């Protein structure tokens, strides 16, 4: 009861983190992805693109691209509009402008394994197969499983106005090209130099340097193991050496159709055993790329 009282008082003063209960403005834009899919990099890219006078770093990123899980309702209400909001949420019909970043779930699983190690959720010797089994079941994140999160957005918004789908792998291949799409989406004049500057300022090496000095200032890294980095490899395909065949098979059996639609080549392409929705194959008649 005491705890309810404290929580109630915090709510009354707007000091709680609203998370999914965020008050949405019609001119909000959301940067959404499943966790560990390049969300932070995208935040830096977009912050550096939209606010070139304030180079993004870990100390100011929550102000430039506010995070409803890390800021209070009061702070979020006072942000200048239009806001560019960071989110990992599954489908929410109130979000009218969405930039959705998707990444190969085999790499996402590997990255989340290391991140949860960093957050001391389990020890270094925790078996990765066991982690992948929980990952597939959606038990490692409050935002649904990878497939649920991605499918909930694609099914409702793909190919509709106000929705921009980016692949992390495409961003790695040519960040400037992908950022130009974002600039068009946000109606920001996209001269090549502005885009180049944003890309350079957001490079993985730059972010690693900043993490070294600012990790304790940022909500997502403070109170975590400092010997495991937040900015990890920033590469695609790490799963090829980091995941066992059994783990890969488990991921592909869950989401083979969705992965194929997104252009992620399967190691075990016999999808007859897959149990993800056949709707994915047929409803989204055009492949995403």
């Amino acid at each position, binding site marked *: 009861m005491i705890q*309810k*009282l404290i*929580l*109630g*008082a915090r*709510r*009354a*003063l*707007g000091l709680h983190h609203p998370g*999914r*209960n965020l008050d949405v403005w019609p001119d909000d834009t959301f940067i959404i992805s499943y966790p560990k899919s390049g969300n932070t990099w995208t935040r830096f890219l977009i912050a550096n693109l939209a606010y070139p006078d304030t180079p993004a770093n870990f100390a100011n990123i929550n102000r430039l691209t506010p995070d409803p899980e890390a800021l209070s*309702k*009061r702070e979020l209400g006072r942000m200048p509009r239009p806001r560019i909001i960071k989110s990992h949420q*599954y*489908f929410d*019909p109130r979000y009218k402008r969405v930039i959705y970043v998707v990444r190969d779930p085999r790499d996402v699983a590997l990255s989340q394994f290391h991140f949860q190690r960093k957050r001391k959720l389990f020890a270094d010797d925790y078996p990765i197969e066991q982690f992948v089994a929980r990952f597939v079941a*959606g038990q490692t994140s409050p*935002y*649904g*499983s990878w*497939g*649920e*999160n991605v*499918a*909930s957005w*694609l*099914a*409702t918004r793909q190919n509709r106005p106000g929705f921009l789908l980016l692949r992390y792998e495409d961003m790695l291949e040519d960040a400037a090209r992908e950022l130009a799409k974002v600039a068009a989406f946000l109606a920001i004049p996209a001269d090549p130099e502005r885009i180049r500057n944003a890309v350079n300022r957001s490079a993985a090496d730059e972010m690693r340097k900043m993490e070294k000095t600012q990790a304790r200032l940022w909500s997502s890294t403070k109170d975590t193991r400092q010997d495991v980095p937040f900015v990890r490899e920033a590469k695609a395909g790490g799963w090829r050496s980091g995941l066992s065949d059994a783990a890969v098979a488990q991921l592909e059996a869950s989401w083979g159709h969705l992965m194929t639609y997104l252009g992620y080549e399967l190691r075990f392409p016999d999808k007859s055993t897959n*149990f*993800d*929705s*056949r*709707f*994915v194959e*047929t*409803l989204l*008649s055009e492949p995403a790329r």
Partner: protein
Amino acid sequence: MIYGIKRVFKYMLGRDIAGGTLAVRPDDTFIVSYPRSGNTWTRFLVANLLHPEEPASFANIERLVPDAEAQSSRYMRRIPSPRAIKSHSYFDPRYPRVIYIVRDPRDVVLSYYDFSRKYRQIGDDYPLARYVSDCIQGRLISAGWGTWGENVASWVFARGARPGFLLLRYEDMKARTEEELQRLAFFLGIQLTADRSAEVIALSSAERLRELEKTQGKDWVSTKDKRSDIPFVRTATAGGWRNKLAPEAVAEIEAAWGNIMAQLGYELVTRKAEAEPVFATTAPELGESGG
């Protein structure tokens, strides 16, 4: 600045509407649909399946199969496990087991139009054509459920053919109630005899619900203080749109949601679908068993 003192006190006392903050239990089963898609009928079927000792009515349905979006957190906490819960929510990953009912959106908007008049959200003179556009654009007062297409697609895509997800079509339930009830019972882990099946269907029939609404409608949370000259239990038929919906309205709906409609086996009349239907028109296989 003080934010909604009243809401905060309600929250502290557990009197806030459960809805999105509902504490979900691992053995909960949710009956989910877009509004006006046969949810109440399914609720009665489930209540009568689970509680042979107590025929469902509008007086006890909130206890037998409570409405998470009408009841308080405290009320929901007091319902013993395993709970069967009614919801209109779009995809929510916390719902462990879901019975999702889908209905032809051309019938849904017609039914929703009458419902909105009953709820005094629109007057009797509100043009149906405008109402259809409102539905498609998500401009309805009840837009909290997303549009029909968003609600349906978010569930069907995210959960699809996975265990713990049973997809029912309202039209199938009308056309072959016994078979669909068997799938429902199988999903709930209930053995159903022919006698019992007939009894459950009779206790949940539109005729019985209409009779119950007449005497209990003024007390039920979903109908009290609403216009009593427009019934909550409407025609309970499929295909009413063919006579009542203008071709332009049909075209507007099919332009917005044609692909998913075709996927679900609803034949388009104003355009060609870009995808083959996933549903056979013959009886589907039995769903995933309970437990």
